[in-house]
Each structure stands twice: as structure tokens, then as C-alpha cells.
């Protein structure tokens, strides 16, 4: 009798496993088809035509032919816009850091003084991050006119969002032991911040800020296209005037600047780690 009951259990269990396995396979197939459908719709929406790359390659070749050799005689004229580009990034990063630090403290769930401050700070961070720096640049150009200043402001405001979020996450993930220990000594909130939170997260904050500076240098090149000054503006002007040899020179300079900034930033971050 017992054997019979046990036998039925085993059969039922095997049946259930077979159904489970079949269901699992069906789900996997459905997910694979779904992934394929997503890729196909993307190709349709972007009107992907790889054959046009082949038929239009002579256009690119013509551009490259006219851009070579680069016009190195224009090199001295790139120095000032280059300095502007780097300084736009530097200004934007500094503004971003100064504004992001207090916002991040309010937006970090583990140290925020109140729920309202938390949601308020998160809203500001979310908004400044959601609006692209290019749009901020257009807005600031209409407010303060053309030149590097609107570019710096645009990068600053956008950096507030980007840095604010990363700083807040850093604070939320830090070891709270020293903070609780300071609380118990009777230290005040501002003292806990300056003696406990700041020294604990400072290396991470500096690392993130350096990475942002590196990103902002790249962004400041693009901002020149909407009139925010710097080497991007010079690149746009050269393109519009069909000065392709100057364009190639500017591309070389941009490549050198981006690479240098990236290496310096990486080396400094490594030292801070």
C-alpha cells in the first residue's frame, strides 16, 4: 500500500517536473522572440540602410581627401578657443561640485535631515540631470548671450544633477559606524558632517568630480556648436566655411585634449583610490 502511494507520488512529481521544464522552455523562447522583435523595431524606426554606407563612401573619401593635410599654420589660432573649452569644463565642474555636495547630503536617505528635504533635493537633482546640457546651453545663450559663459553655466547646472546623484549614492553606501559613534559623543550635525562624513567620502567625491571634469571637457566641445564658445564653435565655423584642412587640425587638437584629460583624470583617480 505504502509502495503504491509512493509510486504515485514519484509519477506525479515526474509529470510536474516535465510540465515545469516545458513551461520554462516556452518562456525562454518567448523572451528570445521578444528580444528579436525589439531589435527589429529599432532597425525599422532608425531607418537603418547599411547599403547607403557603401554607396555613399565616396562622399566621405572626398571629405577626407580635402581635409588632408591638416592646416598646421592655424595651430596658434586654436590655443585661445582650446583654453576656453578647458575652462568651460573646469568652471562647470566647480559649479556642479559646489552645488551638488549640499544637495547630495539632503538627497541621501541615511543622513538627510527631513523627508521633505530628501524629496526636494531628489527632484532638483532629477530635473537638472534630465535636461541635456545642450538644452541648458541654448537656454543660457538666450539669457546671457553667446560665448563661453553660457557654456560653463550649462555644464554647471547639468553637473549638479549628475554629481548630485552619484554623491548621494556614495553617502548612502558609506560605512555608518563612525557617524553613529560621533552622534553618541554628542557632536552636532554639522560637526558629524565635517568630521565624519567628509573624510569618509572625500576620496570618492574627488574621484567622481575628476571623472565629471573629464566628461565635461568632451561636452564643452559640443556646446560650441550652439554658440557657447570654445573650440567647438571654431570647428562649426570651419565646417560652415568648407575649411576642411582646418577641421582636420581641430579634430587632432580635440583628440589630444580629450586623451590628455582622460589620462590625467585616470591617474589622479588612481592615486586617490
Amino acid at each position: 500500500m505504502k509502495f503504491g502511494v509512493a509510486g504515485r507520488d514519484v509519477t506525479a512529481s515526474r509529470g510536474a517536473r516535465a510540465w515545469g521544464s516545458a513551461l520554462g522552455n516556452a518562456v525562454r523562447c518567448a523572451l528570445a522572440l521578444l528580444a528579436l522583435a525589439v531589435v527589429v523595431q529599432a532597425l525599422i524606426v532608425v531607418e537603418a540602410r547599411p547599403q547607403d554606407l557603401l554607396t555613399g563612401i565616396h562622399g566621405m573619401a572626398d571629405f577626407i581627401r580635402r581635409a588632408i593635410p591638416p592646416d598646421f599654420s592655424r595651430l596658434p589660432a586654436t590655443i585661445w578657443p582650446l583654453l576656453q573649452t578647458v575652462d568651460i569644463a573646469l568652471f562647470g565642474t566647480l559649479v556642479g561640485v559646489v552645488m551638488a555636495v549640499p544637495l547630495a547630503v539632503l538627497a541621501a536617505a541615511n543622513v538627510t535631515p527631513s523627508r521633505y528635504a530628501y524629496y526636494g533635493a531628489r527632484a532638483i537633482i532629477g530635473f537638472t540631470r534630465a535636461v541635456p546640457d545642450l538644452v541648458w546651453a541654448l537656454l543660457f545663450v538666450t539669457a546671457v548671450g553667446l560665448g563661453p559663459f553660457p557654456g560653463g553655466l550649462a555644464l554647471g547646472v547639468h553637473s549638479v544633477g549628475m554629481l548630485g546623484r552619484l554623491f548621494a549614492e556614495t553617502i548612502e553606501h558609506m560605512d555608518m559606524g563612525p557617524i553613529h559613534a560621533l552622534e553618541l559623543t554628542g557632536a552636532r550635525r554639522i560637526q558629524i558632517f565635517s568630521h565624519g562624513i567628509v573624510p569618509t567620502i572625500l576620496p570618492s567625491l574627488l574621484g567622481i568630480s575628476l571623472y565629471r571634469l573629464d566628461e565635461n571637457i568632451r561636452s564643452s566641445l559640443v556646446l560650441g556648436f550652439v554658440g557657447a564658445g570654445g573650440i567647438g564653435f571654431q570647428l562649426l565655423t570651419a565646417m560652415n566655411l568648407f575649411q576642411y584642412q582646418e577641421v582636420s587640425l581641430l579634430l587632432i587638437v580635440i583628440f589630444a585634449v580629450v586623451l590628455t584629460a582622460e589620462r590625467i583624470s585616470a591617474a589622479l583617480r588612481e592615486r586617490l583610490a
Partner: protein
Amino acid sequence: MLRVRGLSLRYPNGKLALADFELSIAAGEFVVVLGGNGSGKTTLLRCITRTLKPSIGEVWLGDINLCPLEGEKLRQARLAIAMISQHASLVGRASVLRNVATGALGRHFTMRTALGGLPACELEAAREYLSEVGLAELAEQRASTLSGGQAQRVAIARSLAQRPRVLLADEPVASLDPEAAEDIMRLLQRLARSERLAVLCVLHQVELAYSYADRVIGIREGRIAFDLPRGEVSRDVVRRLYVGEAA
């Protein structure tokens, strides 16, 4: 020095963590609390520091009852209570000396201390506290480079910088090797005597309680199971404290 009267705490989930707890510790006395996991030992310490608000009861520090206090008055009253826990919780990137001196922050509120500076007099005092715990030569070293035993000594020096009258220790030797654990217990015992501190130390190591405590309190299910001078604590009494947990 420290008196706890009729202290009870019921958590929001209905669990009674402490029930009608009575305790009194004199200056210079070293009291060890024993009890199984979840018996209410840490809850007792958190009620004394008022990081938890008791449901009913009183916690007297000298002639001040901490229970009704809030805000600045509570912060001021808390200055007399220092606490160390299982982990030293030091700021790893700061020097040992700075870590010790931060224990005095509660008594100095100036622009300098608000912006990360420390008063020169407290840095000097911190050197003395480091000598007290036998680590004067490590003053300038980064706290992250210390061993577990050294870090715990620095945490004790930090609590001394607070100039407390009561020192609470929540399993201060739980993560240390036996030799370092003995060192810390000897230090706490010595400080209780020399600084006239009322020390309340939660432990799991029964042997350490037998060796160092003036008095041993057993807690079971939030109530006092026994409160006896060290010499009167039998092995059987202590064993009974943990029987329910083992079963």
C-alpha cells in the same frame, strides 16, 4: 552614578524587549551584563543612551532623568555617557590622534570645529588619552592601518576624550582574539578605577566576566535573572541563563 528604575520597552511589533528593569552602578564600578541573543542586553544600552525611548521607566544620570529629555537638553545630558561597541567605528582616513580628539566635539561648537578643525587643547588631551591606552606612538598613523585590538583601544581613548561619567560597552571584545580581548578588559577595569567611571559592559564571554567584573547581571527575556557580586555567580546560574536559548 547611573540608576535605571522600572525601565520597560515594548517594540511596535508588540515584543517586550525590557520589562521593569532595575539597575544601579556606582562610580568606579565595573558591571558586566550576560545574556543570550535577543535577551535585551543591547536594548538596555540603547535605552540608557536614549537612542531608543523607553515605553516607561527612568534613567538617572546623577540627578538628571534622561527619559523626558529631548533635543539640546538630551544632547547635553548624553555628553556624560560614552559608548563603545563591537566595531571601533573609526574614521579610517583620519589619523589616530584626530579620531581620539573627535570624542570631545560635543563640548566645542565653534566655526573651527564646524568646518573640520579641532581645538589645539583637545589634540593635546588626545595624546594623553592615547598614552592612557598605550598607543601614544601611533598618534599620527592612519586609523585604517590599525589592528582590531589597537582600533578598539583608540575607540576607548575617543570615549575618554568625551570625559564621560558612564562608559557603556556593547560586546567590545566580540571581534578580537583572546589575548587582545583580555587586554581590553584589563584596560576597562583599570579605567573604571582610575577615572572613577561607572562601566556597564555587555559580554558573551562568561570567563571574562568571572575575571574582571565587580558585579555580574544576567538578563533573560528582558528581565533581570540575577544581579550578584562576581564571587557569588555560580556556573550553574550562568548556565541556566543560556539553557532556554540552546533548547
